[in-house]
């Protein structure tokens, strides 16, 4: 049995089939990229796994437990963390408090939660901004806070929705380093939606490609970029020639 198994997921938004019969499996410790053009159903697939949407049919199994139709808080408690493409810019809580909410997922004690939150913040080099409110921070840092918040819930599988969009090349480099470190040092399995091909190719061990709600390819990054379907649907001829 695989770590995360997705079998025949179908999600139909009243005529628009966002996910059509998608199946794949992820093994523990892997880094998997999920790519595809806009509207291909990537975020829907994430939401079906995490529980924001209930799939019309199909099955999701995580660590040998059927989690199909679980609510997001239940999948989180089962060990799946996620970050959002758009982080709501809020003014109500500081960075430290945000991350503490994540730690409270695994403890009831405030001091323990605080200690763990500080630990995560230190690990991501966010100590300096711990007392800022999220709206006071640049977008790259906001993303990192979202990541820290999810990490504080101690996930075994972390699902990242476009964690690098809007970042400059140096910042992307940092994120790549960070993700690799999380994967190797903390043994967190990573599953990421990404548009920046450079990053996908660098960081993922395997890539899944969606188009119009269907899985059109799956394989090693080096094979994916040569795959005709993928070139046609997503990468474009120019990208393929440039390689």
């Amino acid at each position, binding site marked *: 049995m695989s770590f995360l198994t997705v079998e025949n997921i179908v999600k139909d938004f009243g005529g628009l089939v966002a996910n059509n019969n998608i199946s794949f499996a992820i093994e523990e410790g892997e880094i998997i990229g999920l790519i595809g053009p806009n509207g291909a159903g990537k975020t829907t697939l994430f939401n079906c796994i*995490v529980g*924001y949407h209930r799939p019309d049919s199909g099955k999701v199994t995580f660590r040998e437990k059927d989690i199909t139709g679980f*609510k*997001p*808080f239940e999948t*989180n*408690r089962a060990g799946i*963390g*996620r970050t*959002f493409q758009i*982080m*709501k810019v*809020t003014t*109500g*809580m500081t960075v430290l*408090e*945000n991350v*503490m*909410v*994540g730690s*409270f*997922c*695994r403890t*009831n004690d*405030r001091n323990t*939660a605080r200690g763990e939150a500080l630990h995560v913040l230190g690990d991501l080099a966010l100590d300096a901004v711990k007392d800022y409110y999220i709206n006071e921070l640049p977008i790259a840092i906001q993303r990192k806070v*979202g990541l820290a*918040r*999810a990490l*504080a*819930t101690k996930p075994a599988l972390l699902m990242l929705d476009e964690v690098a969009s809007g970042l400059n090349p140096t910042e992307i480099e940092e994120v790549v380093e960070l993700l690799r470190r999380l994967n190797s040092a903390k043994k967190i399995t990573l599953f990421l939606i990404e548009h920046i091909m450079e990053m996908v190719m660098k960081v993922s061990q395997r890539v899944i490609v969606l188009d119009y709600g269907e899985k059109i390819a799956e394989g090693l990054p080096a094979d994916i970029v040569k795959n005709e379907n993928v070139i046609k649907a997503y990468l474009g001829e120019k990208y393929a020639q440039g390689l």
Partner: protein
Amino acid sequence: MEKLKDALNFSDFSKAERIGLIIFSVFLLTFPWIGAGSFTTTVMIQFLLFSLFGMGWNTIGGYGGQVELGKAQYVGIGSYTVALMMVWWKVPFWVSMPIGILIAVGYSFIIGYPLFRLKGHYFAIATICTSLVLKDIFDNWNLVGAAKGIELPIHDHPDFLYMQFKSDTYYYYFIMALFYIGLFYMNWFRKSKLGYQLRMIKDDENAAESLGIDIRWCKIKAYSIASAFVAVGGGFMAVYNLYIDPASTMELSLSIKIALMAMLGGAASLWGPIIGAAFLVPLDRFLGSWLGGQKGLTGIDFMIYAGLIMIVSAYQPRGIWGIIEQFRKRGH
């Protein structure tokens, strides 16, 4: 023990706030000796009572960010439980009050469960409706006195078992004690796991869910804590007024006043409901009695009252406390 320490620990507040709290506490303690007339004592009792209501409302309404406009029904539950048990079975206050709290909490779970399927405006409307329904039932229910209300049997002064006194000073210290219990509880609450989770829910529900928070359950818990606070205040109202009817305990205007005072003072802050009550209760009372006596000026107090609320909410949505914090930030 740890919780008690947390409740009494105000060290994360600024020095000015802590000194303010001490001065305020000294004032409260000595108030009955420093030239308090019977009218001002009544106003002070009202102020403490509404602070207590507001602090309760602040759990779900302030920290949780849910526009809750049905707190009066729990004032009703608290006061009716105390009054009826005293009239029917001569049950002392100290027994009927906890039972009132239990009924209020039980009832809040029952209606909170369907209520928190709703969000935003729909939730606000539903809370108003549940409160109105309960008032209508009590208005027409002969067994509990219907719209006429019920009078409590009067005991000899001072009766600490039934909490009946001739002098307002006793009531004053009694409500002050309840006020401090509420204040310490809220001081613990804002630092508790539930407090943090509610603030996250208020900020971003989707993110909260992704962090393992069962949103609906958290809201229900906060709602029932709020209800318990309000029921205590209701119980106090019964023994203080010695007469209750649906109009004085379950009116929509009472629900709105509770929410309004907390919002005006500053929702989601420990001091907010207290500041709100400190502004609105005296304003309500003094303006009302002063202008009400003037020929042709009756009703103007409501306009002033409403105008003030509009000005504050337009200037700073976080209320009076938000304005104070804004100025403090500028000063730095």
